[in-house]
């Protein structure tokens, strides 16, 4: 089964001039896809659609076998909580929660992910395991979130996206705030964790040099037929 199927998908705020228009995109389960796109290529729109925050104006959007437009707003929120981990470009963490509380938060929104984390030896244990695997040892865990470096913050965000083993992880420019060394290290760690759990990864970045890390690389500007018409 495919993790993701987009067919004749279009999205626009008004009646005309769609922001995103994709004829066909299929991502297999366990695939790690690199989507290269400059700003204005429809990245934010695609992220909103995958997350179920936006609904396609027309066409099919099937995530993990579920046609998202068949779900209500609340059901899409729950679907996102249960099945999708999201990593933003930066400022991923809630400054008023501890590192562990940030990482375990998705499980408080989703019984499914909570159950999976518990099956892996307990919520905090699983969070600590993920953080350690991503290179954040015990000496870091006690620190307030705001004292972490940007690279450390992104790794905490990755652990949060991965906890409770969601089937799909969407990363939106997660490395753009990192320098080259840390960028490679981050991607390697993220890929390793996804590989270990068969997680499908969609990695969006404007930087084409990262493409070689991934199984498959696509240019969003090319597959989005609306972008050459001057969409935002």
């Amino acid at each position, binding site marked *: 089964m495919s993790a993701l199927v987009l067919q004749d998908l279009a999205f626009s705020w008004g009646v005309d001039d769609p922001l995103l228009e994709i004829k066909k995109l299929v991502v297999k389960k366990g695939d790690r896809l690199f989507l290269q796109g400059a700003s204005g290529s429809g990245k*934010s729109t695609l992220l909103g659609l995958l997350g179920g925050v936006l609904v396609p104006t027309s066409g099919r959007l099937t995530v993990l076998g579920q046609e998202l437009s068949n779900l209500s707003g*609340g059901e899409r929120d729950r679907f996102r909580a249960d099945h999708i981990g999201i990593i*933003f470009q930066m400022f991923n963490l809630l400054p008023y929660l501890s590192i562990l509380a940030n990482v375990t938060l998705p499980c408080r929104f989703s019984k499914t992910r909570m159950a999976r984390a518990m099956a892996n030896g307990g919520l905090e244990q699983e969070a600590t395991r993920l953080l350690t695997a991503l290179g954040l040892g015990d000496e870091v865990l006690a620190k307030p979130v705001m004292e972490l470096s940007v690279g450390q913050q992104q790794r905490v965000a990755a652990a949060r996206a991965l906890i409770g083993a969601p089937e799909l992880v969407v990363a939106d420019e997660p490395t753009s705030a990192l320098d080259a060394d840390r960028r490679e290290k981050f991607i390697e760690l993220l890929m390793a964790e996804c590989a270990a759990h068969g997680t499908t990864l969609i990695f969006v970045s404007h930087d084409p040099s990262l493409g070689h890390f991934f199984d498959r690389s696509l240019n969003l500007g090319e597959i989005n037929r609306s972008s050459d018409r001057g969409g935002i």
Partner: protein
Amino acid sequence: MMQLSVFFLLALRSVLNRRTTAALTVISIALSVTLFLGVEKIREGAQSGFANTVSGTDLIVGARSGAINLLLYSVFRIGDATNNVSWETYEDIAKRPDVAWVVPISLGDSHRGFRVMGTQSAYFDHYKTGDQQKLKFLDGTVFTTLFEAVIGADVAQELNYSVGDKIVVAHGIGAVSFVKHEAMPFTVVGVLARTGTPVDRTIHVTLSSIEAIHQGWEGGAAPRGAGTTQAESFTGLELQPSSITAVFLGLTSRIGVLKVQRDLNEYAAEPLLAIIPGVALAQLWRVIGIVEIALTAISIFVVLTGLFALMTNILTSLNERRREMAILRAIGAGVRHIFLLLVTEAALLAGAGAVSALALVQLVLWGAAPLIVEATGVSVAGPGISLFDVVTVFVVVLIACLLSFFPAWRAYRQSLADGLTIKV
């Protein structure tokens, strides 16, 4: 489905993260609710104090006028009697088998703005204030003979009088009187403890003394020339007044109060009015209670102001919290969760403020209730949380939640528009 505890935790942590503004909001709500609860406590105290201005007296009888008028001049020493009650009528009332005790009073003179009241020593046995409290003596004793006076706490304090001082009574009731009973000064023999009632502003003398100082004044003016009577000339003389201003009376059985009241109101020999003090006091309170309503209204508006400040605070925080909202949504929060989160936050802030107010009021009552009684005579309730207090806290939290619907709705719209895009 997400549990409520998560909302609570997130709202609490988020509020604590903005602890300076949150603390200010809590303080403004705490102060406004403290004012509201405090006004209510004082109002309760004033009302129950007022209702007990006179207690233990079953009926007050005077010449026929209005009930409130009779109450005003006999108990509050405000205004004048339109007419007197004859001594014969007084004796007739006293003889009734269902009457346990009678105390006559006679008003009309004053001393430096304080009313002088002629009565009998039985007054101090039967006249009660507050919760059936007899009048207590701070110093000295009851008068026993002519030209002795027992003064209330305000009189003693404001005029700096104590036992042994001489006072001259003026004819009439003005603060400045040109006609004085100078020939017959009174000696202070007793000072009463504060009651918070008009007793504090009264100078009590014997009925015979009132009669004595008016000997020869039947024409309404001072006797002229050498006819001026001196105090010494009355020693040992029993003076019987021909009329009195009003009568306080107690019954052998309170069950008969309405019957006695009716009998007296239909008294054939002269037109009388008998009032039940509690009923007349309640009528009077309805008139002056307007002040209390105004006070309560003001304090309600202050509380609303505090709650609007809370709403403003949450509203202004929204813009800087767009990232927080987007992160929560990415993790799986729905827009309705965002809405609920903000309502929870408002409830937390308002709850903290209202509960602090409750504690503050208790603290003040615990520390200051005795001082308030001493200074004003208004006995506010001691520490203790009433149902009213608890209801107030709940209502404040409820209103805060309702008001927070506006910022919550804004956040909801904002969150819908932003989606998973982080706007910094």
